[in-house]
């Protein structure tokens, strides 16, 4: 039985993806696992009681808007690159990078807002977890912004165009993932804080 299945496939090239893109997806899996474990830890810890209740900073709504908008502009840049419209591509990349940095600044202000509410990193785990979520996500987002800037520079060097999309596609995947990750974290916090 097993041999039959084996031989029917014949000596053909096995299906394969671009190795770097594939590795990026695997990296994304590891990041998912980190946040999955932390959010599970949050729920487990929360169920044990002694949990500080506080309102989430409203600035999270704005930063969420920024990150969604940056995904849209990046997608605009991506479509432009596929059509070889290089000036639109550069415009899209610049806007996306600026929005990425704006998001980071916004997250920084959310920490300030938390401090105003007397929620500190050191103290009840309810607050500490919030700092860990946003901080760890911000670190990944910084790597995403660096990636955006690398693609931005290559776009000015005419290295991103319809025949050379690998770098661009990886950047798009990673950035959309980071945006999605933030939306997940925000939604999780809205439901569980």
């Amino acid at each position, binding site marked *: 039985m097993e041999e039959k299945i084996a031989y029917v496939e*014949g000596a053909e090239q096995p299906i394969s993806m671009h190795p*770097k893109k594939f590795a990026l997806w695997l990296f994304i899996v590891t990041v998912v696992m980190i946040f999955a474990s932390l959010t599970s830890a949050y729920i487990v810890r929360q169920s044990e009681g002694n949990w500080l209740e506080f309102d989430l900073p409203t600035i999270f709504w704005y930063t969420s808007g920024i990150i969604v908008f940056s995904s849209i502009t990046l997608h605009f840049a991506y479509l432009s690159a596929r059509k070889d419209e290089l000036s639109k591509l550069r415009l899209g990349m610049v806007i996306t990078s600026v929005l990425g940095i704006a998001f980071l600044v916004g997250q920084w202000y959310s920490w300030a807002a938390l401090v105003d509410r007397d929620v500190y*990193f050191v103290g009840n785990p309810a607050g500490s977890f919030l700092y860990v979520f946003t901080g760890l996500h911000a670190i990944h987002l910084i790597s995403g912004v660096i990636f955006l800037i690398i693609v931005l520079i290559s776009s000015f060097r005419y290295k991103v165009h319809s025949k050379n999309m690998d770098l661009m596609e990886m950047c798009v995947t990673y950035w959309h993932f980071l945006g999605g990750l933030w939306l997940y974290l925000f939604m999780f916090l809205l439901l569980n804080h």
Partner: protein
Amino acid sequence: MATANVATHSTDAHDHHDHEHHDNFITKYIFTQDHKMIGKQFLVTGIFWAIIGGLLSLVFRLQLGFPDMELEWLRPILGGWITPDGKLDPEFYLALVTMHGTIMVFFVLTAGLSGTFSNFLIPLQIGARDMASGFMNMLSYWFFFLSSVIMFISLFIETGPASGGWVVYPPLSALEQAMPGSGLGMTLWLIAMTCFIASSLLGGINYITTVINLRTKGMSFSRLPLTIWAFFLTAVIGLLSFPVLFSAALLLVFDRSFGTSFYLSDIYIGGEALPNTGGSPVLYQHLFWFLGHPEVYIVLLPALGITSEIIATNSRKPIFGYKAMIISMLGITILSFVVWAHHMFVSGLNPFLGSIFMFLTLIIAIPSAVKVFNYLTTLWRGNLIFTPGMLFSIGLVSFFISGGLTGIFLGNSAIDIQLHDTYFVVAHFHLVMGSASFFGLMAGVYHWFPKMFGRMMDARLGYIHFWATFIGVYLVFFPMHYIGIAGFPRRYYSWTGFEFSNMYTDLNMFVSVAAILTFGAQLIFLFNFFYSMYRGRVASLNPWRSNTLEWTTPLHPGHGNWPGEIPAVYRWPYDYSKPGASEDFIPQTVPLSATPESNLPHEQELVKLEKQIIADEEADLVADESKES
């Protein structure tokens, strides 16, 4: 020998892939991107760590077996860790067991086993030039090296290395005041483990990418050697579980160094309350064991994969139940993620939850038993060839059975109340995980040494090494079951002070002597390994008459592995003793059309399909040559 097709591929066409001539000493031996050299780097570093880890265990075995012994003679090495009256410092005893565990689990049996053989064998057995990313692979080794250096340094600092057990449970590990080892030693432990996690993830991403994307023509998943399946699933487990250890360690770092309270709550030291409130130490246990249990299979699966390959080759029989082997490994992979709480039965876990985890834990016995039966049925009535690698593989099966049986006891949440944290547990996991994986590692070294270094290891020394180690392991760990059932807790410095445990000193003495002798037997291996590397008998191209692709490479494969085209694959790797065939093995590179005498009816029909593919390939080859000229 029916290897006509190999000849068609190894034409003397110039190859584009041989980068050997660029290499100087640094790029060839140190910052190498060649998967074979990286594998050897992992192996040698792993051997170094195994010696350190083994020596540490001997020191605490001396304490346990001979509690009244004068240890003054260890002062030149251990210095202040020997107390003025010539005894082992109790704090250092805890450091010894902690570091022994950490080193053996992570540095020897994860990096030394998976790192060595995944790197070395994946490209060779799937027919790839190298890993998907040689640079990431190099980075993986150097993160491991950095981690090793930091962990090694932590052995020598004044307050001693981490001492809270290899699981480093808070609050013991989180508070510097708790014990000397929880100071700088613990910080270094956490830094080293973070580097180790980075190394494992870089390696794992590479292994998975390579297995999925870089297989040669014809190498479908149903033709992969079981070694590759095992390495692949190991990498999947690592990819999913190591990030969780990272989370656990990150929160521990925050608790230790920034004053947060993830794991700490309501602790009094010297009558003073600490400011931390609201933390949960059980939370750490959940996060840790979510890695910790899959880690057992990260250690074990590569050894099982290596064993499958070696047993099939040296039984001269197809592996029994190839698909069943894959399905059981998949089953183990999935189940390994849903059983972690069986390490926590006595942590105050809800007993109902305990019975769910007990149920899931006992299910793992099924795929494990399937694998054992498949090994035994492969051996059954085979033309057994007892090479040292084969002996170590059979030894693994033995440990897997004897150690696995006690796992069924321990998986029961009720019995675990008595047995938890006793020597019964120590005996169990040293047999089923420690010794079994170690034997897999040894089997792999003996079996692939000819491919690694082009020379054979001395078989006679191998036999002595095997029997001494095999008997020694049982002599060390079997008595521990009795000590454990009698209620002796692990990690205790001394038992003589307690009424319930001041017997059995003779048995402990026996274990200690056996441990020293078993360690001594490893010196035979070390000699054999390094001597054979330079002076061993030069190996033939396929010394074990094996089917897999690595034996079609030259004796000393360069960077790129095959000088010409990568050979295509036309059959599964276990065509041993096929009825009608002239030899008792048919390598994977032999097309079905070359073996009409042994083809089964359905294979005969595939010959036509195959001819078309070979014709295409030859057209490619001609095109390549004309391009070059």
